[in-house]
């Protein structure tokens, strides 16, 4: 068996176990592109095609069960909202449309929110709530934050020695375990209802901006509005100076009042443990502002 033959055998094997149709039927359909695939017992040790299909079926069953379970663990509230049967059908469609393309199962669900959004746009056979994709965005953001890189969290003690004039130059940025979600629906209340096993209220159009972050080992989220949302986006994208944050808060008030508001928020962010010190030279870094609009 040469390397190309090995590659063809593995392609044939995976193609068959990763599709939902009966195996003998799928093998027959494969025959045109892969001569020899249809007679399963000619390349698998079995006394008949039926026996070979049954054995291959063990792998097919495990393929769908494993990936379905992984999606259900990643999107538990989506699964709860839909119920087991509807979620299984949706997951099965996802598995066919988005085969896993990463060695780690951790990443398999990363296209799921977009897939749900596409299903909503296509008005597909799935009867999905209008806010379901946004809920999935929140669930996925919580996963990303759960194991994001550690950072040296800034505490209030580090500010104690700063003189008032030094505050303006204080360089801040959000820790890596932070995400800002801009959503079309208010899903924080939906998340709370589902998480608490309460009946969900009907979709409530937003927009809504959610802050998702990790403190210690726990993941939190809360809705943020107006100036705090703008400030957090600046903190998430590349970091910013405290003086520049005050400018954001000064959009509709004096600079003194803005500094007071900014300081109040700074106190909250420090208590939330979501700030770290930005480098002296603020460098551009990968943005973790995520824009998701569902209209």
């Amino acid at each position, binding site marked *: 068996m040469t390397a190309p033959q090995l590659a063809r055998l593995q392609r044939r094997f995976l193609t068959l176990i*990763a599709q939902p149709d009966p195996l003998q039927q799928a093998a027959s359909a494969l025959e045109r592109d892969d001569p020899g695939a249809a007679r399963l017992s000619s390349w698998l040790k079995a006394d008949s095609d039926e026996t070979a299909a049954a054995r291959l079926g063990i792998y097919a069953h495990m393929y769908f069960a494993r990936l379905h379970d992984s999606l259900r663990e990643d999107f538990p509230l989506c699964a709860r909202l839909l119920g087991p049967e509807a979620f299984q059908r949706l997951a099965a469609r996802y598995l066919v449309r988005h085969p896993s393309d990463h060695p780690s199962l951790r990443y398999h669900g990363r296209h799921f929110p977009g897939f749900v959004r596409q299903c909503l746009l296509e008005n597909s056979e799935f009867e999905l709530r209008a806010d379901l994709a946004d809920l999935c965005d929140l669930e996925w953001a919580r996963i990303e934050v759960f194991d994001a890189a550690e950072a040296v969290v800034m505490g209030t003690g580090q500010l104690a020695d700063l003189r008032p004039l030094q505050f303006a130059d204080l360089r801040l940025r959000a820790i890596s375990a932070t995400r800002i979600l801009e959503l079309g629906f208010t899903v924080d209340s939906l998340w709370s209802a589902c998480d608490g096993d309460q009946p969900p209220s009907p979709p409530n159009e937003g927009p809504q901006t959610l802050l998702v972050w990790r403190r210690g080992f726990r993941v939190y989220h809360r809705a943020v509005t107006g100036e705090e949302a703008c400030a957090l986006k600046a903190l998430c994208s590349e970091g910013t100076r405290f003086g520049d944050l005050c400018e954001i808060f000064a959009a509709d008030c004096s600079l003194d009042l803005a500094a007071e508001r900014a300081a109040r928020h700074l106190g909250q962010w420090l208590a939330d443990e979501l700030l770290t010190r930005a480098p002296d030279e603020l460098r551009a870094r990968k943005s973790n502002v995520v824009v998701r609009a569902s209209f």
Partner: protein
Amino acid sequence: MFDVPHLGHGIGLRPTHYAELLKHGARGVDWFEAISENFFEDGGRPLAVLDRVRLDVPVVLHGVALGIGSADPISDEYLGRLRRLIARVDPAWISDHLCWGSSDGHYSHDLLPIPYTDEALDHVATRVCEVQDKLGRPILLENISAYVAFRDSAIPEWEFLNELTAHTGCGLLLDVNNVYVTSQNLGFDPEAYIRSLRSSSVGQIHLAGHTRQPEFILDSHVGPVPGQVWDLYRLAVRHFGRVSTLVEWDEAVPALPVVLNEAARARRIESEVLS
């Protein structure tokens, strides 16, 4: 020659036990085996648990996604993450499976069987050498559970493993449960399999539970280690001597003392057989 220390009788590091391990450390555990890919990210609770238990006991990294038998190229990104984790954990050794898992970049997240042919042996041996060169250390490969075999397979699995370890210097992680499961599913003598392996190649042993279905046996890693697997373990200890042994329990994982009881039983059996 593959040479690893004898660590005793360990268990798999599983999320069910994270809270207890963070609080009390690895009390009463000889060593842990951690699934490498579960710790590839850069922060959060899983890494904190791994760091915590590593303070107390040796840790071994066990991968499930290297795909040493795949026709797909070995991912440099994957090896990079593994190298980073090795540098952090300083594992006693690292291991993965003799299997493939992806085709054309599509990952099955399963341990799929390869045809046992001379060409496949060359293919796998070349890749083992590539991985060992890139990681700068030998690896152990585990025999998987199989539910089907290929018509092209011309070499018994145990001979394939003997040839592979002899040609590459890699070691064998002998999963005794997998030997039993595959022997029942594909029809061979599990005792002859174990007796046929070159004893110097075996660096670690796995024990686990399985589930008997009407038409086959499923390698489910659920429940205590069954009697047939303990019997094969006795044979393995007689044949290979003292080998670091690990109990895997992955479904309906019970409290830590229950899993540790299984490791203690393995310790007693090893002691009885070798006394």
